[in-house]
């Protein structure tokens, strides 16, 4: 965490307009990450690569994550009047957090043998503001992986030299790795159905007029 904070300070000193945020990882791995604003992503990545003290020259992994709209409850302490007295009570307030898509980058340094440095960048929402600048001009290694994220999650990488679907066919609609993707209905023959498959298969059988 301290090391990440020092990297953050170093980048912010070099690029004063770019604001980075630390995102702590509650798990056991201790791999915390830096959240970058999309507008400054390319500059930050270039700086991380070219800074002689950091030299994060190897972009190992690029991936997308789909975060759905969710409702979070915050506990807030509010002052209430109760039987003439003012007391402090705890109330839970529901807060709607709009969903977004996230692109996660894992950087390593071949020159120094350090890493991973985890960068995250978030889109505005899941529907129309889904563009993120491409890193393919800084790291060639992002090229195919960004195409995959575009294909499976629907993040549009601006400035990508060749942004096409990578895995699914041309003409396919939808982004299958999104959490709300509805899978095609091809459950015509399911001899061992249970769980979700049973429900899907029975719907399908009903359509075919089968028991």
């Amino acid at each position, binding site marked *: 965490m301290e090391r990440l904070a020092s990297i953050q300070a170093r980048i912010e000193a070099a690029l004063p307009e770019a604001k980075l945020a630390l995102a702590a990882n509650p798990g056991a791995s201790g791999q915390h990450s830096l959240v970058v604003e999309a507008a400054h992503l390319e500059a930050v990545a270039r700086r991380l690569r070219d800074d002689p003290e950091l030299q994060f020259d190897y972009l190992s992994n690029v991936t997308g994550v789909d975060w759905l709209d969710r409702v979070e409850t915050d506990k807030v302490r509010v002052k209430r009047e109760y039987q003439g007295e003012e007391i402090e009570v705890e109330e839970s307030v529901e807060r709607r957090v709009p969903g977004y898509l996230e692109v996660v980058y894992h950087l390593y340094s071949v020159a120094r043998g350090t890493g991973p440095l985890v960068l995250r960048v978030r889109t505005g929402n899941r529907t129309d503001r889904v563009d993120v600048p491409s890193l393919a001009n800084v790291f060639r290694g992002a090229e195919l992986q960004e195409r995959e994220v575009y294909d499976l999650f629907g993040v549009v990488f601006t400035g990508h030299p060749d942004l096409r679907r990578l895995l699914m066919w041309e003409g396919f609609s939808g982004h299958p790795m999104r959490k709300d993707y509805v899978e095609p209905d091809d459950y015509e*023959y399911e*001899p*061992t*159905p*249970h*769980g979700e*498959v049973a429900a899907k298969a029975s719907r399908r059988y009903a359509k075919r007029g089968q028991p």
Partner: protein
Amino acid sequence: MSVEGAGLIRGFIETGRNLVGSYVDPRRWVTVQYPEERRATPENSRVYPFLVYDGADPEEGLRCVSCKICEKECPPQCIYIVPAQDERGRPRKHPAIFDIDISVCMSCQICVEVCPFDSIKMDQAYAWDREDRFGGLLLHKADLARPNRYYRELHPAEARVVDEHLARERELRESGVRAAVRASLPGSGEPGGGT
């Protein structure tokens, strides 16, 4: 190296050694004349699951208690279980239907690992070629049941551990039953003659 073609000639010498060697050196004579000559599969080898039964009756002796853990944990979801019911419609600890679709099974052995009753084990029979996919590759309870004897032959070391473990459990259960019976007897305390 300097002579053009020396590397090629060296390669030919190597293939020549192999050619001759394959007639004299057993390490180079590797072909197994399959249908006539079969290699023994190692003990750990696994293909598809089967159900173990104790005693002589493949229906009543099944160890499976229809707890559906394997059905839930099976990664490709190829197991289908319906528990049997007694006359009054209550579930019995016995499967009425136990099907495995071996056209889906990925031979991963996770059903064996999660089964708490040692009732599902891995078979080593691999020849399952069928012309009919629908009838031939869906195995039912009767196709799956194998005696414990068969399991002991396939996996002797593993079966020894399992048998010991089951025997110990049975003993514990019986002594527990005995203790419970003793406790319920009026004026107990004296060790009676065992049942």
